[in-house]
Structure formats: C-alpha cells, structure tokens
C-alpha cells in the first residue's frame, strides 16, 4: 500500500494534530495538492523552474581527494549546495509556491532555523510577487545574521520569535499561530517533511528530485547503484528526498545522521530518533525529544538547521521498519568533517551537511575501494563560517 494512507499515516506515525480552525485548510490543501499532482502541466511548470531558475540537475561529484584521504570507499557528493540560494530547500519552496498560486493565495508564511528555508521561501515569494513573512527564533537570528539580511533584501518580513528556546521549534509554533489567525488568506509553507498531513508527503514529493537524479547519475558514472547513501536529518527533508527513490533497492544502505551535539548522553543534542520517543508535536505523531510529562525538550546542535526536537513522521516509520539506519554525529566531529572537505575538495559545506560527511568518512575507511558512498551535500556553508570561526577560536 502506498504511504501515507489517506489520513496521512506512515504506519503509526503522521496524522493531523492541529486546532480545528486549521482542519478545513488542511483538507483544502490536500485536495489542491492531489489535483495538482494529477496535472502534468503542474509538474512541467515545476520542472521549468527547477532547470532554468534553480539550476537542476545538480551535479553528482566524485570527491577524489576526500576519498583518498579516507583510504576506503569512493565518496560521491550530491551537490545540492550548487542550487540557487545554496541548498536543497529551494526545490520544495518552488513546488509549494506554485501550489499556493494555484490556490489563489497571496500571502506566504514560513518558519526557519538556519535561515536556508527562509531564504528559499523569500526567494520564491519574490519570484511570484507574493507577500512573505518568515518566523525565526531570535537565537537563530543572531547565529544566522547573514541569512536574515538576505531575506530582508528579498522583500520578506523577518519576525523575531522571543518565546521558549528562541529557535526553530518556537518559530514553528509562532508560524502556526499566524496561520490559525490568517488562514483564509495565507499559505503556510513548511520547510521540512514535518507538520500535519499533507505536508510530510508533499515536501517529500518535491524533494524526491534529489534521489531521482542521484539514481540516474550514479548509474551513468559507475554503472551501478551505490552501496550507501548518507544524509543529515533535522526535520529530514533532504534525507527523505535522496532516500525515497531508493527505498525498494534493498542492497542500498540508507543512513540518516542526526546531530549528537555535545554527545548523546549529555542531554545537549538534537538526536530525536536516537534518543526521543513517539509523541505529538507540530501537527503529527512522530519521534520527539521530551520529558516524562510530554513537555518538549530543547534541542542542541552547532548547526541551527538540525536544532529541532522533532522529525518527519516518515523517518520514524523508516526507523521502526529498519529500512533506514539513524546514527548521530557530534558538533566536534561535524566541525572536523567541515574542515576536511574545505581542504581536500575546496568545498565549504553547510554544518548540517558536515554531519552527513563525518558519518561517510567514518564508514568509508571500513569499506573496500570499489564501494560507493553518496553523501547528500544539502547546502553550502557560507552562512556557517562565523559559527565555525567562533567554534575554532577565530582560526577557522
């Protein structure tokens, strides 16, 4: 049976846990998306923008010097960092903006952690002349000042969120409050495979292009499918995008990498699938970092983009079925991988992607030279250089 089911469940995860005010809007969105999904002209228009505006297909690059350094498997990088705006996020925002336009919506709201989704949303809104407001925790605004400035240049209003942890979790709460208030006129553009049905399936469908291209490219370049695909998981959209077209290929090992922050046993991490348990947050049932009473814990990662105590419900399902293995990498390991890629390949990765890289480097050394690992390089690291400089004591 294709997942999710009609109520938006992947096994026991997913669903719609939102205030009643929003339920009719979710029903309307689901119907609009199903209708668009069946319409070839919708996908043709999306493909036009993905090719001519985003710059797809993104290359699949054989990282020769990185691979030599690891003395093991050949590592290939799926270069989502080369997309317009510098990350995979733009694939989904263009898709959803086209849908919002079909629905006659004029105002777009979004939430953002590291700012990549906010920038991608502000970009897509500018492209189609829509009003745009982006909610961002004040802590993240300080960490990601460059992206805040980019959003403002693009004409978006950046709304600082002072509640709670002042990070992505609270930005998402605030965006939902805005949506509850302005549901008649406003389209809520969720940036990950999280939230109530139909967002997890819709965002996955818009990000599948990463995996579809990877599949073709790796076969063209190597004549076969890869042994391992590695991607970082915050909410989990880049991982779901690259994994999904390979789910039926049992010989391809899929590895999702969460942020272990200061360490899995320190309480300062964002490893939801490794250390959380099933619960309800932001509209769906999935793994959640929480205390005994069901209060949501604060997540920690050096990467603002991974700093989220929830995860998309399909990842929870893939964890429970065992199809995807979820590991975690610490801040320190991610920083090492960040520097390694800079120096071996001349590519500055996003700190999110550096988590996936760190895992790939660990695995490559234990695999034979004919093995193939694909890492989803989900974004570029310009936004993170100050964070890295601070972490390395100004020597970054």
């Amino acid at each position, binding site marked *: 049976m294709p997942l999710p089911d009609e109520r938006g469940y992947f096994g026991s995860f997913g669903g*719609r846990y939102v*205030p*009643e005010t*929003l339920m009719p809007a979710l029903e309307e969105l689901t119907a609009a998306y199903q209708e668009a999904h069946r319409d070839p002209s919708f996908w043709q228009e999306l493909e036009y923008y993905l090719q001519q505006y985003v710059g797809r297909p993104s290359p699949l690059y054989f990282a020769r010097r990185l691979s030599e350094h690891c003395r093991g498997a050949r590592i290939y990088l799926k270069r989502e960092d080369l997309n317009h705006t510098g990350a995979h996020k733009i694939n989904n925002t263009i898709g959803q903006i086209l849908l919002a336009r079909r629905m006659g919506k004029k105002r777009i709201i979004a939430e953002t952690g590291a700012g990549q989704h906010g920038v991608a949303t502000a970009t897509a809104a500018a492209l189609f002349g829509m009003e745009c407001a982006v909610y961002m925790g004040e802590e993240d605004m300080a960490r990601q000042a460059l992206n805040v400035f980019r959003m403002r240049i693009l004409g978006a209003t950046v709304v600082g969120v002072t509640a709670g942890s002042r990070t992505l979790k609270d930005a998402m709460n605030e965006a939902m409050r805005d949506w509850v*208030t302005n549901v008649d006129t406003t389209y809520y553009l969720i940036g990950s495979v999280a939230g109530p049905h139909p967002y997890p399936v819709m965002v996955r469908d818009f990000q599948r292009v990463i995996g579809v291209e990877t599949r073709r490219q790796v076969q063209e370049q190597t004549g076969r499918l890869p042994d391992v695909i590695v991607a970082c998981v915050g909410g989990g959209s880049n991982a779901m995008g690259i994994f999904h077209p390979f789910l039926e290929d049992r010989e391809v090992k899929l590895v999702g990498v969460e942020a272990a922050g200061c360490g899995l046993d320190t309480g300062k991490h964002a490893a939801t699938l490794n250390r959380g348990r099933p*619960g309800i947050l932001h509209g769906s049932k999935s793994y*959640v970092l929480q205390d005994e*009473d*069901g209060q949501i814990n604060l997540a920690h990662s050096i990467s603002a983009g991974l700093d989220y105590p929830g995860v998309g419900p399909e990842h929870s399902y893939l964890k429970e079925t065992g199809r995807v293995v979820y590991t975690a990498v610490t801040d320190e390991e991610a920083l090492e991988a960040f520097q390694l890629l800079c120096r071996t390949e001349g590519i500055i990765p996003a700190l999110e992607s550096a988590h996936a890289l760190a895992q790939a480097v660990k695995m490559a050394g234990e695999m034979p030279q004919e093995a193939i690992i694909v890492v989803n390089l989900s974004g570029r690291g310009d936004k993170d250089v100050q964070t890295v400089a601070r972490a390395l004591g100004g020597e970054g």
Partner: protein
Amino acid sequence: MKGNRITQRFSALAQEGKKGLITYITAGDPDLDTTARLVRTMAEAGADLVEVGIPFSDPVADGPVIQKASARALANGVRVRDIIRTCAGIRQNTGVPLILMTYYNPVYQYGLEDFARDAAGAGIDGLIVPDLPFEESGELLGHTDHYGLALIPLVAPTTTEKRLAAMAPAARGFVYCVSVTGVTGAREEIHTDLAKFMRRVRRHIQLPCAIGFGIAGPVQAAAVAPYCDAMVVGSAIVDLVARAGTGDPAPAVAALVKDIKSAIEKCA
C-alpha cells in the same frame, strides 16, 4: 453521561433561563496552592464551570497571555500528576464542574487510559484538547467515555457543515465554539457573525454551546450572551494572575468574575 456534573449544570442553567460562565486558569501559575484557591474563589464568585489548564511547552492554540502563564508554571516545575492531585483536593470543597484543558502530547505520554481513569477518579468532569481534531480522537474517546469523562469538542468559524455533521456523534458535554479564527486572548471586538455560526453548529450538534476566545470582560460577555448557552473567559483572568505578581490575585479575579456574571445575568 447522565450523572455528569457538566450536563447537570447546563440543565439547571436552562431551567433557570440563565447563561453560564466558564472560567479558565493555568495550573501552577504561580503555584498549585494558588490554583486550588482560585478555583474555589471563581466558583464562589459565580463561575458555573471551571477549566484548569495543564501547561504545555508548545501551546500553538494559545495567545501570548496563556503561553506565558504556561511557561511560568513549567518553570516552577509543575507536573501533570500533581495537577490531577490538586483537582482531587479541590473536589473535596466544591461541586463546580471541573474541566481539564491541555494539548494532546501530555495526555498521550501519561497514557490515554491512565489519564482518563485518574482524571475521573479525581472528580474531573471534562477534557478539552485543542490540537486533537475528531478524526484523531477515537482512541481517547473510548477511554474517556468508559470513565465518564466528557471529551468536549472545539468548533471554529472555519468548520464546514460536513465536518460538523461528522463530529456530532463524538461530541460530549458541550460544544466549545471558538469565536474567532485565531488563538486565545482578549480582543476588543469579535468580527465573526456569531448568529450564523451558532445556527450552523446547532443544526448539527444537540449539546449546549459555549463561546470562547476573545471575551475580555463584561461588555463582550453581554454581547455574546444572546448567541450561546455559556461563555469562556480565560486570558483576561490569567492576565490578572500575572499582574498580581507575588501578591494575592484572588480579589481581582473574584471581582472580574462577579462583573461578568452580573453582565450576563442582565441578558437572561
């Protein structure tokens, strides 16, 4: 659910031709002793039903006043078990119908059956879960029905006729009609066409209707009274608790409840 205090109270109000007043406070803000005292204060001042909020870290249906109260209560370390125990204590001293309001995750983590059993055992009469639409409420409803706890539905101005018809069989106690599209919080005016909204609700659900969200004081209360069987006042009371700081919020809360009560009695 014949013996349920909620149903009894609405029957009594209907017989007297009066409108009911439902008041809300966040448990543990500033502490559970004050919560217990405020529930009794409000009941004595004229509240017909009282809602006790179990704070949640991520209250997406609430505006800033209740959001901050929840954060204060959680910072004080309030726990779900202690709140239920406090309600059991309150029940020793008052017959006012008690309703717990919280988000789904605290209930889910407590265990759906355990929660229904313990809440009912503490003398609680109803439960409101704003992020649990009827499509997802089936499992919890099985347990709340079993233990005689009313799972009270919320409906919004955006709720379609089709949804109202579909949720009617699962509705218990009364219908909580959200007066505006938006979050909780006092407002100067309510722009929703309440007459039309309530006609649509009553066409499908044969239970008492309470209007909530945005009722700040006697003026708005008198304005919405003609359309409903009861009204909910939350943020305005929680705001008084916040303003009292380390002082005693009870006199101000009692005064507001009395003012609203007398304003709606004039409408009867």
